[in-house]
C-alpha cells in the first residue's frame, strides 16, 4: 500500500509530454487502405434496395462489404453470458437508427473511400421513428425491435429488473406522507479527443494484428472472433493506449469491420472516425426516465420506496441490461430504506445504442435519488443534511440487493460536505458515526433488517 497517497510519476507521462506515446493513428504501416461506412440516413426503415455496383467499379476501391460478407452478422455484447444476440454488424434488411452501418468500403485513400460510399444507392421504406422511451414503452406502440420494445432476457426470462424487499404496502400505509418525483437526465456524448480508430494488418501467418483504442481489449477480441467465427489465437490485439474513452470505447466499434475489409482486400486497413461520425454514430450515455415515490414520516424517516426506471437502450441492447442492474442495486442511494419495490426496463428506441459512461447506470440513479432526498426534506420542512445523516447507511444495514454494509462512508462524507460549505449541523448530527444502529437511530421499521442480510 505504499503507493497510496504518494505522488508517483505517471508511467506514461514522459512519453505523453514528448509526443512519443503511440496512439492507434500514430502506428505507421505501408500499403494502407482506408475504411468508410455507408450509414443509414434515416432513423427507421426497411431497406428495399442496395446497389453497390458503381462503388465496386470505382478506381481505387479494393473491397466493398455488406452483411452477406459477415460470417456471423448478428451478435450481442452480452452473448458470452448466454443472452441471445440482437445487433447486426451491418444492417440486414432494416435500419433502426440514424448512422447505422449498412455497407463498408476500403479504398486507396480516405477521399476515394468517401466518394465510393456516396456512389452506393439505397432505397429506404421509411417508418415512423420512436425517440421517447415513455412512448416506446407503451404496449400499443409500434414494435421497433425483434424482442418487442423492451429487453426480455433478465434472469428467468423476466422482462424487467425487479427488486422486492420488505413489505412495501405496510410502509405506505404507515407513512405520514408520500413524496413523489420524476427525474429525466438526458443523453451525453463522451467526446474523446481521439475518435474511434482501428488499424488491422493481415499477417503472412494468416493471423490478423489489430491495433485498437478499445477500453476493453479482451472483450473486443471476443467480439471480433465471434463475428469472424475465428479462434482467438488467430487474433493479435495491440491496445492499452486510449485517447480518452469515458466508457464510450467499451463497445467494439471499428475493429470487426476493419478486420473484414482487411481480409477481403488482403491489405492493412485503417478506420479513423471523423468527428462527425463520433458525434452522430458513437454510443452515448443513456437518457433515463425515473419515477420515485417515497413513504416518509414527519420526522424524516424513509420507510419505503417505489421506483420505476425506463433506461433508453437505443436501437439495440449492448450492455444496457448490465447498466440497469447496477442502477437497481443503487436505487436507494447512500441511504437505508428497508421496504422496496423497484421495476426497471431496458427500452428500445430509434436512437443510437447507448452504453457505459463514468459510473454506468449509477450516475443517473444518484442524480435522481439525491434530488429526491432534497425534495423530501423540503416537503417535510427538514434540513437536507440532517435527513441524509438520519437515513444514511450504517454498519449492518443492507443494500437493495441484500448486501450487508461492512464499512459504509455515508456519514463522514456528508459531515465533510456540510463542513466544506459552512453548513452548521446540530451537535448530535456532528457527532454521528457510521457504526451499527442503536437507540434513536434504530426505529421499529429498521429493526428487522439490521444484521440480517436475508431480511430482503
Amino acid at each position, binding site marked *: 500500500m*505504499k*503507493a497510496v497517497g*504518494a*505522488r*508517483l*510519476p*505517471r*508511467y*506514461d*507521462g*514522459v*512519453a*505523453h*509530454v*514528448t*509526443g*512519443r*506515446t*503511440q*496512439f492507434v*493513428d*500514430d502506428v*505507421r504501416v505501408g500499403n494502407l487502405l482506408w475504411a468508410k461506412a455507408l450509414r443509414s440516413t434515416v432513423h427507421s426503415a426497411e431497406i428495399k434496395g442496395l446497389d453497390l455496383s458503381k462503388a465496386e467499379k470505382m478506381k481505387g476501391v479494393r473491397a466493398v462489404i455488406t452483411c452477406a460478407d459477415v460470417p456471423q452478422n448478428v451478435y450481442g455484447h452480452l452473448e458470452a453470458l448466454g443472452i441471445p444476440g440482437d445487433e447486426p454488424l451491418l444492417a440486414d434488411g432494416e435500419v433502426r437508427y440514424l448512422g447505422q452501418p449498412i455497407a463498408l468500403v476500403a479504398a486507396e485513400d480516405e477521399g476515394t473511400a468517401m466518394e465510393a460510399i456516396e456512389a452506393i444507392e439505397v432505397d429506404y421504406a421509411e417508418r415512423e421513428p420512436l425517440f421517447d422511451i415513455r412512448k416506446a414503452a407503451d404496449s400499443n406502440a409500434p414494435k421497433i425491435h425483434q424482442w418487442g420494445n423492451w429487453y426480455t432476457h433478465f434472469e428467468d426470462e423476466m422482462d424487467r429488473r425487479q427488486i422486492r424487499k420488505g413489505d412495501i404496502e405496510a410502509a405506505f400505509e404507515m407513512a405520514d406522507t408520500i413524496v413523489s418525483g420524476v427525474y429525466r437526465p438526458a443523453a451525453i456524448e*463522451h*467526446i*474523446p*479527443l*481521439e*475518435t474511434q480508430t482501428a488499424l488491422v494488418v493481415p499477417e503472412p501467418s494468416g493471423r490478423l494484428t489489430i491495433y485498437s483504442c478499445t477500453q476493453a481489449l479482451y472483450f473486443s477480441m471476443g467480439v471480433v472472433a465471434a463475428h469472424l467465427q475465428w479462434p482467438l489465437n488467430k487474433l493479435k490485439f495491440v491496445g492499452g493506449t*486510449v*485517447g*480518452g*474513452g*469515458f466508457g464510450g470505447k467499451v463497445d467494439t466499434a471499428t475493429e470487426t469491420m476493419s478486420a473484414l475489409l482487411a481480409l477481403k482486400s488482403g491489405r492493412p486497413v485503417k478506420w*479513423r472516425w*471523423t*468527428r462527425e461520425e463520433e458525434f452522430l454514430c458513437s454510443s452515448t450515455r443513456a437518457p433515463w426516465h425515473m419515477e420515485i415515490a417515497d413513504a416518509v414520516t414527519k420526522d424524516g424517516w424513509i420507510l419505503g420506496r417505489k421506483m420505476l426506471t425506463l433506461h433508453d437502450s437505443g436501437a439495440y441492447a449492448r450492455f444496457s441490461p448490465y447498466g440497469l442492474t447496477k442502477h437497481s442495486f443503487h436505487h436507494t442511494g447512500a441511504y437505508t430504506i428497508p421496504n422496496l419495490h423497484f421495476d426497471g426496463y431496458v427500452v428500445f428506441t430509434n436512437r443510437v445504442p447507448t452504453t457505459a459512461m463514468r459510473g454506468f447506470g449509477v450516475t443517473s440513479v444518484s442524480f435522481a435519488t439525491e434530488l429526491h432526498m432534497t425534495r423530501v426534506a423540503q416537503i417535510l420542512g427538514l434540513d437536507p443534511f440532517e435527513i441524509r445523516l438520519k437515513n444514511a447507511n450504517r454498519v449492518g444495514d443492507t443494500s437493495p440487493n441484500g448486501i450487508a454494509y461492512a464499512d459504509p462512508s455515508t456519514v463522514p462524507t456528508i459531515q465533510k460536505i456540510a463542513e466544506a460549505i459552512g453548513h452548521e449541523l446540530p451537535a448530535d448530527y456532528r457527532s454521528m458515526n457510521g457504526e451499527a444502529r442503536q437507540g434513536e437511530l434504530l426505529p421499529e421499521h429498521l429493526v428487522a433488517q439490521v444484521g440480517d442480510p436475508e431480511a430482503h
Partner: protein
Amino acid sequence: MELTVNGVSREVQSPPLTPLLFVLRDELGITGPKAGCQQGGCGACTVLVDGEPRRSCLAPLAAFDGAEITTVEGLGTPEKLSTVQAAFHEHYASQCGFCTSGFLVATHALLESTKDPSCHDVEAALAGHVCRCTGYVKILEAVEAAARGDVGEVSTVTRPQEGQPEVLVPGSPA
C-alpha cells in the same frame, strides 16, 4: 516545397492543398500533432509556425513554403524535457495524452512572448484547446509552474524523490 521542422530542413512532396497536419504525420512521420476534429475546433493538431500557434488541420501546405515549424517533438526530449513539458509531467496535466501536444506548444509560445502571464493571458492562450480528461485545473497549475520556472530537474520529475516509494515495476503503474 521546403519546411524546417524542429530545426531540420525537409523537402516535401505532398500536394499543395494537403493540410499541414497530414504533411507532418503522413509524409514526415511526425505524429505528435493529432487529428482530433479536423475542423479547427479542438486544438490537438496545434503546431508553431514561425513561433505562432496554428491549427495544422486547416492550414494548407502551400501557405507554409519555407516556414519554420515546431511540434511537440521539438520542445524537448525524454532525457531533457523543456520547462513546459516538465511542468505538465510534474503536475499531472496530461492524462490520456491526446490533447497534450497542442497544449504544450501553445503554452510554449505563450511563455516565449509573455514572461509573467496573468490568468487572463493563460486562459486566452489555451481557450481553443479541448481537454476531456483533466478538467483543466491541473493544466492551469502546470502552466503557472512553468511560468515561474518552478519545475524539478528531469531526474526528480521522472524518478521517485527521496522518501517516495519506488515504482515497483519499471514502465508500469506502481
